[in-house]
């Protein structure tokens, strides 16, 4: 996670050889110092993850484990065949409808905001703080607030759209608009985080390159396109990967705002794991979904590491 949060540090560490790490692991003191953190990690993260792998091979009775049956890969076969409601493939499509606008929209918006807000003035500081504040608000609390903003009878969103002559809509209750409404809310909440990453990236730019471009009479757009964006590449890759991982794992807004509905129109992969395990009580199948989510997340994290290394060369 530390690597994920600091692409530059990742790059610099990865450029060193692995020998110091190997040497550290031969020391008994090293084990002693990391033991407390390792135990917590084992009990609350690694252990349950391995247990979830095991559960995915069972038709698991969550109330009485003695009545559970080993079914091998049946849960995975059901998953691939799409026999459950909602089917795995429709869940993946729903996830894509959330992940793509979150990654593309979030990256573009936060990059543009970063370019606009990267100066040093009290007003810009204030605006940056305001955008970031949305990200640190409690997710459940603001989700409930947005439920009321989208309320079809009393909501501010319909009041605002009415000014443009639009008829009131049941934003969260209509399958055509529910995902759009959640994406709008999620972007509002998440852009503050990616904005900070881009602002950090902008502070590391080599100013001499921009000065050279200006001497060569490049206009502002050309400077951004040919000079600034190439230098921001590791940060952009990091934002894309971290946004994809966060979006795949998103749960709270779906739980609070739509319950995965209407129908299954907002039941993404992350929500479907909860839905199958704790609503429909299909624990083994839910574990299989969780394994797939784990695999997707792991692949994306590896890609991010690979991309960070490549940009470091």
């Amino acid at each position, binding site marked *: 996670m530390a690597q994920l949060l600091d692409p530059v540090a990742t790059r610099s560490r990865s450029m060193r050889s692995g020998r110091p790490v190997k040497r550290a692991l031969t020391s008994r003191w090293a084990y002693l110092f990391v033991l407390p953190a390792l135990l917590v990690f084992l009990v609350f993260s690694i252990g349950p993850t391995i247990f979830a792998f095991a559960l995915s091979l069972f038709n698991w009775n969550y109330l009485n484990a*003695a009545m559970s049956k080993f079914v091998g890969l049946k849960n995975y076969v059901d998953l691939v065949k799409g026999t459950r409601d909602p089917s795995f493939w429709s869940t993946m499509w729903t996830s894509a409808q959330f992940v793509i606008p979150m990654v593309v929209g979030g990256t573009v918006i936060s990059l543009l905001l970063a370019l606009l807000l990267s100066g040093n003035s009290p007003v810009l500081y204030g605006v940056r703080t305001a955008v970031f504040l949305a990200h640190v608000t409690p997710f459940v609390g603001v989700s409930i607030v947005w439920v009321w903003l989208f309320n079809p*009878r009393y909501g501010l969103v319909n009041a605002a759209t009415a000014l443009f002559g639009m008829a009131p809509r049941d934003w969260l209750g209509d399958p055509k608009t529910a995902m759009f409404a959640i994406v709008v809310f999620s972007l509002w909440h998440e852009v503050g985080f990616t904005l900070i990453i881009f602002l950090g990236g902008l502070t590391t730019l080599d100013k001499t390159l921009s000065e050279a471009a200006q001497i060569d009479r490049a206009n502002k757009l050309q400077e951004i396109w040919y000079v600034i964006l190439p230098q921001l590449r590791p940060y952009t890759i990091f934002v894309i990967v971290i946004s994809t991982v966060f979006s795949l794992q998103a749960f709270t807004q779906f739980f609070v705002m739509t*319950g995965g509905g209407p*129908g299954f129109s907002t039941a993404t992969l992350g929500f479907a794991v909860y839905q199958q395990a704790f*609503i429909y*009580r*299909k624990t083994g199948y839910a574990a299989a979904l969780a394994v797939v989510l784990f695999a997707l997340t792991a692949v994306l994290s590896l890609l991010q590491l690979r991309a960070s290394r490549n940009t470091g060369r």
Partner: protein
Amino acid sequence: MTRNPIRGLATLLVAGSMVLLSACSGSTAGSTPSASALPSLDPSKQTTITFMEAMSSGAQQAALKKMTADFEAQHPNVTVQLQEQPNYGALQTKITAQVAANSAPTIAQVYENWADELSSSNVIVPLDEYVASSKDYKDFYSGIQADMKLRDGKNWMWPFNKSVVVQYYNESLVPKAPATWGEFAQTAKSVSKNGVVALSIDPGSETSPAGGTALFEILAESFGTPVFAKDGTPQFDSDAAKKALNYLVDLKKSNALALGTNYPGQTALGNQTGAFDVSSVASYPFNQKAVGGKFVMGVAPLPAGTAKTANQLAGTNIAMFSSADDQQKAAAWAYMQFLTSPAEMAYWASQTGYLPVVKTAMDEQAMKDYLAKNPWVGDVVKQLDTATPLPPVSYVNKASGALSTAISSAVNGTASVDDALAQAQAAGKKAASES
């Protein structure tokens, strides 16, 4: 030889996981009580029992605490620990987690479909022998007696907080409660103007069907066919179901119906942008608070349909867990009987708005006083003989969830009534076959 600590750790975890699985496989879930002898409460032994419940706010919390304190005063050797949960969703999750961890409460509030799952997993005890020993059971309303049983015909639950659905209305807009659903539609359309939409409902979602779906289910039964057959088979595409959904669509087209979330009927009634709220009798104190004396709120039984006057029995029962020892079971049984005794039921109903499950509670002074202030309760309580609960099958929530989607789609105009109900029927049958 070079040791690989990562590989060793992984091996240890996998092994630990397998041990855990096999340990779980070896666990037992307890046994059912002997048919010949019920456990008896030994007054010389101190016993503590736990009651996991969701009566965690307002009058419900205060009333249950007082009743529990009164029981403990009568049984000094018994301590009842109330394990409050904030809502029914959290209650179900907590029950599940504690049962899975072999740490079940002694008794808990349960819905009928939860009891079906719990009994299938052998973690609650059948109550037939207990029921046979009860002196109050014969005075329970017949709908309540039926609600205590699961599909196997055995009594698995003991009644507690039961309710039916009623219509709340703004008397300044609706002087007299409609007697039929036809009259209801006529009245709703006539008062829906100047910012008023007569009725707001929340159908809920696929995972959590809500009061709007219950209203649809009642309408379908009122028009001739309940949405579930007696054996639990979904019959969502019957003519009666189509009539019920067309009824709601017609109200929406006349601007007399709105869909919403978070008790929209109560909110609209309270802020005078609605004329009706159709919800449980247990909403009475909450609706009164929402209205806040701005107008007189009328309460009446649900209107009659073309086939019958239907209603849905709601609220939970109490189940006893098999992991309790005999002394705890005896204490829990004494407590459960105490809660449904006529005097306690009269107190409970008068404080919370829930209905008394035992007929003789109506003779208690507390209930007489309550009836004098709320005469509508007298008509409503009679429906405990005729109201029917949703079938006690584990898939009922998922199947009803499909109905909530059908209601939203048809009312919002994204699907025709026939298509919406056909899809719900297919989903309901699939849910039944997967259970």
